[in-house]
């Protein structure tokens, strides 16, 4: 497109009638070439006045392109304003053209049989020679499992990597908090596991809303991940024979989960971090910590860099590269309270979405049933308790609403409530699976009871997870084995406690630390909480978004988990993307860039993006508001949690959309950020993140509203069986919803990627 912006003076009469001391207004002009070949002139007054003698008509020849000469006493300020005005106009024109470029969705899945697609694809993609890689820069945003592993591998291949994270060290990304383990189809236990089984379990677990080829690839590379990590020195749990140990995890029939006590995420991340460190030492990775991505820069239709904010100095910086990789994680913090880290945010992904990348399945969220409940309004964060607790704990609430009230007020102790007055609602509703129903079902059932007024903590949002019968059961077993008196209640109890302690000791201790109650004596209180988002940026088989040169990996993309993620799969996906998938697919794109040379970060596109961020920050900092950022974030979280949480319906979703729109307006009107923008200022950083959550929230509701079916974590109350089971609609909704940005978010355009299943038969996920 032909773009030309010029400055000119606004003559109102013939030029020769002016004297050199006359003042004229400066305007910016833009000549737009229309489809019919003619030029359309857009002229805008700038409000800046300039004497004829101070006007430099050859301004376009000078390096600084200043139209007003230094003879004007205020020339610097005037030129600055003019520059900004031109930038404004430029960006206006730019934006009109962004969304037009999106071609129909092409997932680029290679042809051929499922199990050969990946190897064939790897053989066919173009490569970049080591000599050329040295001249190519790649930006990676986020340094968790996906980002860290991608940085390490890309740098090792020879690319120059610029890595960014908002934490003070790349080792602190929230991947570190993953507890359980990582799946891999190694079949070390000889229990019949295979690549196909892992693939099948993942597809089925995702309720048939993920892309078959991607999931199969994930299963294929899974076992390399374990080899890789062991070679890096990740201390996985081992058996006495010295070989790796496995545990079994939710919803599958084999033991394929590798683990390092309850800190698998930490150990894997430190592995990736160490691989990164090696490349930092070699100078192949330039690590930028405490930098937050503010925007992506697109030059000639390709992702060519990002704008960041230095969180220490507040400086807005421009960084260019030949490709941009987003590994910025999930957006569970949309809910305000989640198990995500405080800093986890959607901003990077959302900015990319606003620049033209499609956002897929935003409303697919996993809500984990066993978390420590909210204890008060001040609560900032929720803590997950391992799913394994449901093996031995029984979940209940009081049968009578009066008892629930008494328990809430502390007038009644839960242990004193008669067995007959307890409602073991999961066992009642799902006699076959009982307390071991899948996560989404357990979560919804807890919400249903609490909404009906049976919640058991101060806030009324908690149910009991009771180990007393397990303690007695185990105690009796132990007494029998030891030949002791099983009628001795106290003895049996203490033996049982010993067994429970051996199994879940660390979790019980953690619970006691947070809640200050002894879970061996009184039942635990639990409540569901958000902890993973399956949705994310839409990517093709190469993990590229709809913006050429912009990739998304790990939780930031929508790829492999469909509508529901299986336990121990998030770590697998992050590392698979970063170590093995992206480093292969990105070469194909960069093969075109071997002659491009360094990308300048001084082009108008960079300057515009930078200016816009600075303006936005200025606006927030100078806003004469009265309410803190957290005030808005908390309200947003409540809206989303109540209307788009564990179960959704049309009416609530519609009202959520309206409420979020209203909240967003109010945010810009009355948000208050104090402190200095040019120093470490967390509330400013938070304000910028929440501003994006306020937009994503609306799309989240729009997405949930558009999907008239229930699948995985997405449960629409209108679409359920008589028994309250999720009712999937494969005929009409067997697709990925990929949304195209619209300033009016409600009007975002839906693109559908239809999902074809060649190797699996679509079945109902049954657990009754």
């Amino acid at each position: 497109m032909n773009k030309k912006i010029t400055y000119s003076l606004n003559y109102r009469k013939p030029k020769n009638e002016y004297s050199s001391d006359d003042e004229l207004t400066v305007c910016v002009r833009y000549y737009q070439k229309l489809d019919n070949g003619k030029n359309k002139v857009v002229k805008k007054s700038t409000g800046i006045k300039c004497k004829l003698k101070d006007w430099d008509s050859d301004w376009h020849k000078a390096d600084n392109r200043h139209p007003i000469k230094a003879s004007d006493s205020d020339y610097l300020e005037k030129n600055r304003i003019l520059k900004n005005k031109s930038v404004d106009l430029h960006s206006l024109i730019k934006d009109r053209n962004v969304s037009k470029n999106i071609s129909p969705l092409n997932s680029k899945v290679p042809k051929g049989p499922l199990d050969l697609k990946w190897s064939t694809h790897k053989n066919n993609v173009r490569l970049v020679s080591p000599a050329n890689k040295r001249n190519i820069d790649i930006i990676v945003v986020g340094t968790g499992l996906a980002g860290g592993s991608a940085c390490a591998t890309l740098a090792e291949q020879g690319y120059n990597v610029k890595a960014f994270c908002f934490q003070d060290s790349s080792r602190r990304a929230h991947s570190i908090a993953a507890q359980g383990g990582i799946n891999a189809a190694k079949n070390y236990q000889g229990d019949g596991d295979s690549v196909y089984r892992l693939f099948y379990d993942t597809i089925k677990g995702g309720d048939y809303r993920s892309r078959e080829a991607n999931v199969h690839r994930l299963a294929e590379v899974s076992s390399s991940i374990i080899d890789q990590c062991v070679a890096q020195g990740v201390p996985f749990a081992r058996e006495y024979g010295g070989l790796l140990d496995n545990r079994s995890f939710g919803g599958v029939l084999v033991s394929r989960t590798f683990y390092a006590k309850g800190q698998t995420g930490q150990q894997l991340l430190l592995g990736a971090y160490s691989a990164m460190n090696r490349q930092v030492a070699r100078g192949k990775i330039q690590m930028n910590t405490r930098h937050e991505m503010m925007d992506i820069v697109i030059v000639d239709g390709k992702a060519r860099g990002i704008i960041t904010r230095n969180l220490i100095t507040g400086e807005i910086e421009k960084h260019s590269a030949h490709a941009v990789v987003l590994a910025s994680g999930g957006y569970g913090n949309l809910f305000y309270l989640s198990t995500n880290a405080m800093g986890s945010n959607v901003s990077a992904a959302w900015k990319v979405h606003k620049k033209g990348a499609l956002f897929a399945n935003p409303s697919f969220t996993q809500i984990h049933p066993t978390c420590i409940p909210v204890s008060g309004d001040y609560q900032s964060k929720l803590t997950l308790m391992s799913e394994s607790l449901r093996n031995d704990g029984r979940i209940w609430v009081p049968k009578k609403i009066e008892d629930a009230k008494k328990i809430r007020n502390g007038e009644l102790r839960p242990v004193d409530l008669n067995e007959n007055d307890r409602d073991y609602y999961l066992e009642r509703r799902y006699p076959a699976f009982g307390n071991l129903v899948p996560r989404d079902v357990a979560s919804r059932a807890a919400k249903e009871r609490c909404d009906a007024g049976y919640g058991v903590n101060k806030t009324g949002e908690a149910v009991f997870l009771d180990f007393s019968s397990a303690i007695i059961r185990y105690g009796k077993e132990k007494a029998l084995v030891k030949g002791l008196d099983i009628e001795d209640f106290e003895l049996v109890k203490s033996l049982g406690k010993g067994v429970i302690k051996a199994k879940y000791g660390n979790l019980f201790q953690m619970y006691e630390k947070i809640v200050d109650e002894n879970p061996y004596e009184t039942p635990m209180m639990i409540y569901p909480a958000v902890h993973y988002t399956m949705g994310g940026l839409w990517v093709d088989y190469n993990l590229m978004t709809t913006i050429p040169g912009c990739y998304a990996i790990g939780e930031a993309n929508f790829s492999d988990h469909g509508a529901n993620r299986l336990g121990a799969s998030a770590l697998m996906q992050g590392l698979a993307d970063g170590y093995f998938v992206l480093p292969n697919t990105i070469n194909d794109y960069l093969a075109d860039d071997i002659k491009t040379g360094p990308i300048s970060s001084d082009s108008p596109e960079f300057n515009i993006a930078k200016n816009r961020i600075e303006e936005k920050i200025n606006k927030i900092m100078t806003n004469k508001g009265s309410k803190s950022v957290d005030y808005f974030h908390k309200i947003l979280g409540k809206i989303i949690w109540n209307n788009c949480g564990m179960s959704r319906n049309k009416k609530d979703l519609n009202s959520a959309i309206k409420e979020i729109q209203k909240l967003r307006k109010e945010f810009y009107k009355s948000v208050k950020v104090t402190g200095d923008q040019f120093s470490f200022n967390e509330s400013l950083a938070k304000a910028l993140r929440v501003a994006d959550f306020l937009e994503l929230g609306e799309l989240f509701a729009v997405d949930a509203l558009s999907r008239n079916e229930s699948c995985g974590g997405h449960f629409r109350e209108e679409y359920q069986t008589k028994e309250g089971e999720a009712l999937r609609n494969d005929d009409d909704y067997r697709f990925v919803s990929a949304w195209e940005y619209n300033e009016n978010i409600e009007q975002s355009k839906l693109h559908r990627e239809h999902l074809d299943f060649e190797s699996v038969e679509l079945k109902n996920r049954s657990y009754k």
Partner: protein
Amino acid sequence: MKLFLKIWRQKNNQAKGKIVDYEIDEISPDMSFLEMMDVLNEKIIEEDGDPVAFDHDCREGICGSCSMFINGEPHGPDKLITTCQLHMRRFKDGDTIYIEPFRAKAFPIIKDLVVDRSAFDRIQQSGGFISINTSGNTLDANTIPIEKEYADKAFDAATCIGCGACVASCKNSSAMLFVSAKVSQFSLLPQGRVEATDRVINMVNQMDEEGFGNCTNTGACHVECPKGISLDYIAKLNREYVKANLKK
């Protein structure tokens, strides 16, 4: 409960800092320490002040971001936890609480309670890795059996969250516990033995360059370590270092 806070405020690295007094009321004993700080900051924002800057992220004791020196001890009076896991029920109504940043020359203050711990990153970059390619074309994971005892010890060392409490608690601001955990994790595993000699020398040299103090074996670090990393790893580090130097 009502509390009297004495918090270190420092605008930036160059500025001079001082202890500022705050009074805060209606604190629930169920709050975590950081939630109490959130409440304080909300109050400061309300009064148009500059909120207290502090590092925090996961708030479940694993990321190692939080770094407060509370009443004379890193991560507060409780052992084996980080600041985010400390709860207000640990304090009494009317208590005075000193809140300071982790102090060391190698941890320059960025603002208020936020310090720059990138020295730890640089120590790791100097050798805290095993030099293998990330191609995935390595040996099968089960090719090298590792004695469970060593695997477990390596894991115990690897649980270090890099928070810097060891440096903060040490009267000499020594980073020996951190470095020893990193060195030991790798040197206990056969994969890591290959580069053990260079690794320990490089990492110790980098540690010294960063300006940490010398270890005088007071043992404060392992008492305050939120992950309970043992002093034995320092002994191991000493041994490794001497051995490496004799070999070189």
